[in-house]
């Protein structure tokens, strides 16, 4: 008898350990799990979620993650089939193809996409279905110090020749004339507009062409500017390193994404008055005037969601027109057309952002990186070429061979993933 009891005890003890995850009592209230990015829009949503819960009666469990951790978490959960995520913020250009290919997004066939520029929806489309609701747009701008330009008697540069002359004139007294991302993979997005303005591309019809003479000229120019007039250590700097340099007054011009304006002039972090910080469009190049304008963030629904109706309800609310206007009033540039047409928004948003957006929307190019599943590895490969160019101030004789080698490596990745050529 005692033996039986002991065995029962052991069995029940060990069982209890494993049973926990499986026993979920049915709940009356619907619950969804949402993953947000540490992005101004994610922050805004967090403050609004209680309103949604009160309206809909759906309980929202949300988590906020830094962008690369978000990708990592989603990928791990989806790849191991253990995901309980219902709705998530997603980066269409970085992970869209990968997620669509693996069937991780649910098709959004009932969503009304009429209010979005069609090319922004197309990025997240496969066949007849769209998978990503575009949220945030981002384009390249040039932040510059109005006071330094005035002191030097310079005008804001409108082409690359003037840009280089201004960078040269402004590099003095411990101030770097020009900055932009130099840290290999992170620099790829910022270099893209320079390549377009020189008439080149990263990928042409899904073939890597960043070793073309046009692209090489752009890479040399970028390397020469950063190597000669950039802050010290620029080859390992991304935006998070450049921003404090700009904010402490050690940088005169800085080309980067439009989203940073509010942070740049945050008076708790900088000694430079907002009135001295200008936002201009990227100067045009010898063969083009096409800054990137991309959908940097979108929102998607998991194909494994156990609660698709509640998830759809949340998605529609989080990407609604009203929410877009609210975000725009906080200088978060949204993808919806109606948000840009809104009179309140136009009156309140920084005029530099409105002007540069209008220019980019008209002339810009909708990619800022090679659009492919293995984009992470491709960015590292292109990054090697960028760093070589910066370290040699654009003069490296090895550059054509290096670019050709890396272009071949990117083509090999495209081939391995079945994405090479075509389209």
């Amino acid at each position, binding site marked *: 008898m*005692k*033996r039986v009891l*002991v*065995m029962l005890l*052991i069995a029940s*003890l*060990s069982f209890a*350990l494993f049973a926990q995850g499986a026993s979920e009592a049915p709940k009356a209230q619907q619950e969804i799990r949402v993953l947000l990015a540490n992005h101004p829009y994610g922050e805004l949503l967090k403050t609004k979620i209680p309103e949604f819960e009160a309206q809909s009666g759906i309980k929202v469990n949300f988590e906020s993650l830094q962008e*690369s951790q978000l*990708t*990592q978490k989603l*990928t791990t959960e989806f*790849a191991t089939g253990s995901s309980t995520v219902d709705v998530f913020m997603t980066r269409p250009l970085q992970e869209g193809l*990968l997620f669509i*290919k*693996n069937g991780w997004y649910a098709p959004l066939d009932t969503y009304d996409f009429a209010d979005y520029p069609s090319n922004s929806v197309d990025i997240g489309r496969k066949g007849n279905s769209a998978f990503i609701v575009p949220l945030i747009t981002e384009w390249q701008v040039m932040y510059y110090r109005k006071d330094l330009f005035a002191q030097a008697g310079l005008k804001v540069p409108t082409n690359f020749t003037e840009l280089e002359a201004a960078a040269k004139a402004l590099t003095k007294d411990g101030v*770097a004339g020009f900055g932009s991302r130099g*840290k*290999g993979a992170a620099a790829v997005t910022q270099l893209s507009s320079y390549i377009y303005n020189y008439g080149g591309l990263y990928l042409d019809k899904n073939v890597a062409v960043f070793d073309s003479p046009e692209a090489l000229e752009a890479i040399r120019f970028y390397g020469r500017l950063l190597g000669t007039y950039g*802050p*010290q*250590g*620029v*080859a*390992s*700097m991304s935006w998070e*390193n450049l921003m*404090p*340099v700009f904010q*402490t007054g*050690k940088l005169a011009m800085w080309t980067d994404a439009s989203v940073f304006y509010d942070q740049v002039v945050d008076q708790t972090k900088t000694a430079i008055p907002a009135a001295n910080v200008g936002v201009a469009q990227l100067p045009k190049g010898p063969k083009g005037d096409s800054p990137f304008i991309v959908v940097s963030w979108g929102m998607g629904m998991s194909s494994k969601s156990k609660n698709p109706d509640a998830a759809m309800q949340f998605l529609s609310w989080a990407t609604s027109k009203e929410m877009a206007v609210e975000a725009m009033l906080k200088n978060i540039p949204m993808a919806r057309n109606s948000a840009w047409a809104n009179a309140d928004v136009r009156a309140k948003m920084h005029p530099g952002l409105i002007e540069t957006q209008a220019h980019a929307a008209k002339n810009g190019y909708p990619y800022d990186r090679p659009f492919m*599943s*293995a984009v*992470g*590895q491709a960015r*590292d490969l292109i*990054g*090697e070429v960028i*760093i070589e160019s910066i370290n040699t101030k654009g003069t490296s004789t090895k550059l054509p061979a290096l670019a050709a080698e890396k272009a071949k490596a990117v083509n090999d*990745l495209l081939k*391995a*993933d*079945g994405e090479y050529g075509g389209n």
Partner: protein
Amino acid sequence: MIKSGFFERNLKYLFPLPALLFVLLLMVFPVLYTLFVSFTEWTLTSGRPMKFVALDSYLKIMREPRFLDAVGRTFSFTVGAVVAEAVLGTTIALVLNREFKGKNALKFILLLPLVATPVAVGIVFNLFYDPTIGFLNYVLSVLGLPQSGWVTASSTVLPSLMLVDIWQWTPMIALIVLAGLAGLSNEPYESAKVDGASGAQTFFHVTLPMIMPTILTAIILRAVDALKTYDIIYAMTGGGPGYSSETLNILAYKYSFEYFNLGQASSILVFLFFLVLLFSLGVMKIRKKFEL
């Protein structure tokens, strides 16, 4: 009253068994699973299912120059950091082994780097190291010395990272060696004194041989950790500039979470696992020699 059946006699083993099994599973399963994945080709970017390819992932990774560089870097980082930590740590322990005023306060201060979170340490050191607005270059410029690129230049990045590791982990070696010193008996010192040994002779022929096993233990503990260093490097440079601070762990991270090439990432990790294992066995052998 108690019948001596098998269960009754072995109750003390049976009760912890479920917990033991659970912990074993938690530790052994990931290792075995990684080993399994390392024999497959599994790239999420291709959308294809996992495929068994035997040693193909290993062969591919061996041909990758970045991997070979990372192996070299992992070694130089470990050797550089641990040797400096061992020398400094032993010196500090010898100083602390004497009686002087403020000894306890000094010990307390020494403990502080040990309890700091590596990522926070990395962020703070990055502020110090920043070439334009950082504290260290400011100090160098005040002293009239040439400025350094610190973690932003490929020539100085590895030593700069070692410096952080040394700052954080020297105290650990100091504390372990100090404990070893406290346990030494006085007799050999007395006989050395009687034989007329000098201070240096006493140190090299009496103290050092006696605490060598302790120092080697500390070195094993540190080196195993240093070979696997991830947090500080990831937080400070992410492996950059370029690939110039990419160690095996960082490379494996990139292969898995940036390239989604899980097969090759696993083969890197298995390689690292055996590297650490071989290294520990090697040092343990040396340690045995001293214990004789």
